[in-house]
């Protein structure tokens, strides 16, 4: 595994440099159009690159969590989820339990962020929390925490922040170009044919930059999904948990609202699933869900990287696990499923209540039980009327 971790560090560095290169060429293109001096644009781009890299390193996790609209929760808010994250922290041997965040969104997804295993966070949508039973939730959390353990998270945060920067700059540069009626290009063409060609190349690059950056990003994010799946199977000793969770994720048609192009690869499954952009798409940041499910289900009775690699070979003739992970002796027998509805395990209805109570608590809703029929009424903080009538029995309840 260590080889994998250090390879990830190298890849992080390579990625940051390649994105930096894209950003600097973009700066050159912007310089040609909007400043008299293309090198002025390069200087600005270099400064932006350094600042954004530092910001991504120190603040990447909080930016991404904020962009996704994630809110941190405490153990008392959702003891069951905390319990699972604690369990998985021990199973995968992280030095510290990740912070737990909730995204109030009916879509089904989850992601992990962080700089290193001692400073990390996992985020999960409320929709997913309601849908998954214990084994499935364990599988998803183990997958996310495997990203932390395998040091994918820093790379992902850096890439997301840099990609976001490139997308924003290109967006505004091309809009400015459009609204200024190509002022810059006229000026360039004054200086002769050579200038016009450079300007044209610059223009093309301004449009292509975000696509380049995204391609770099895609190239690195697919393989690590397989590795995280394999790790999750090992940590939970139950590949079926993640397989069935992925199936639920794949069947869901809701698109997560807090996701954007830059943050998409962080999620467990690609959050964009509008028609014409299926999760199995070639340019997708994630391997197809159906393939991931098939591999997990083919692992048989041993939860190990070797078993995962074998299953992947049988399913899609691919080598997906790095050699260093295969030499280790980590192999454990698969355990039995936990029973849904067993003592202390809530069913679908109870899980929904549990999650909603947490969200209501976080949004400062007040609970009021109708004095007559006991129907539960929940009042939002902006509900200021002095009394509310129970629609079930007609009793007027005072709200103060």
């Amino acid at each position: 595994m260590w080889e994998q971790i250090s390879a990830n560090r190298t890849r992080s560095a390579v990625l940051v440099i390649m994105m930096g290169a894209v950003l600097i060429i973009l700066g050159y293109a912007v310089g040609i159009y909007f400043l008299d001096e293309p090198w002025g644009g390069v200087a600005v781009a270099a400064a932006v690159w350094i600042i954004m890299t530092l910001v991504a390193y120190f603040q990447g996790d909080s930016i991404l969590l904020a962009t996704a609209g994630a809110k941190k929760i405490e153990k008392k808010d959702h003891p069951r989820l905390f319990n699972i994250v604690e369990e998985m922290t021990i199973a995968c041997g992280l030095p510290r339990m990740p912070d737990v965040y909730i995204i109030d969104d009916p879509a089904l997804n989850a992601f992990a962020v962080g700089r290193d295993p001692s400073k990390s966070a996992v985020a999960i949508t409320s929709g997913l929390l309601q849908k998954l039973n214990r084994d499935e939730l364990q599988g998803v959390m183990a997958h996310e925490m495997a990203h932390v353990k395998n040091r994918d998270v820093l790379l992902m945060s850096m890439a997301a922040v840099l990609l976001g920067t490139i997308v924003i700059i290109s967006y505004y540069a091309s809009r400015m170009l459009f609204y200024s009626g190509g002022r810059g290009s006229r000026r360039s063409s004054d200086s002769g044919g050579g200038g016009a060609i450079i300007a044209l190349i610059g223009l093309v690059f301004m449009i292509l930059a975000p696509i380049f950056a995204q391609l770099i990003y895609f190239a690195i994010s697919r393989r690590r999904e397989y590795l995280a799946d394999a790790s999750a199977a090992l940590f939970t000793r139950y590949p079926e948990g993640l397989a069935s969770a992925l199936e639920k994720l794949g069947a869901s048609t809701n698109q997560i609202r807090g996701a954007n192009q830059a943050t998409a690869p962080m999620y467990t499954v690609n959050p964009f699933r509008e028609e014409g952009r299926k999760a199995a798409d070639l340019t997708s940041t994630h391997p197809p869900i159906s393939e991931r499910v098939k591999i997990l289900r083919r692992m048989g009775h041993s939860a190990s990287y070797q078993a995962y690699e074998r299953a992947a070979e049988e399913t899609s003739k691919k080598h997906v696990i790095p050699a260093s992970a295969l030499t280790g002796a980590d192999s454990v027998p698969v355990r039995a499923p936990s029973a849904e509805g067993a003592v202390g395990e809530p069913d679908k209805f109870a899980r929904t209540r549990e999650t909603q109570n947490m969200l209501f608590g976080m949004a400062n809703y007040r609970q009021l039980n109708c004095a007559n029929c006991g129907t539960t009424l929940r009042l939002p903080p902006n509900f200021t009327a002095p009394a509310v009538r129970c629609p079930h029995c007609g009793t007027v309840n005072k709200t103060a």
Partner: protein
Amino acid sequence: MNCPKDHSPMIVVEHDRIALDYCPECRGVWFDRGELELLMELACGGEADACTADLLTRPEATTAEARRRCPICNHNMRKEHIGQQPAVLIDSCGRGDGLWFDGGELHQVLSQFQAGVEGNQDARLLDFLKETLKADINE
């Protein structure tokens, strides 16, 4: 969450382990997708997903009634019919966030609606509304 019709704050009413958002002003009702799925689990059992999808994606009804915005995604909602005796015109979020039932009209229709005749998802949904909002409807 605010009412899609009059924008006053909606309260949450919980009945039979299922919650719905209710506007005390106009008595309209909002079912978000999650709640609708739970209700369909009771109404359709194993076919719950298909039932929910059916409710959220019916053909658009032609009507002059004003469009309402989805309280979750803020996009304009579509008009569709549910039930047959008599049918109710409801608003459905095109992105699948949920269903909106206008207050007054719904209550009128529900007071005439015969409980559980068909036993399909529409009847179960309307029965549920009728039971939850008993006091409102019998007024």
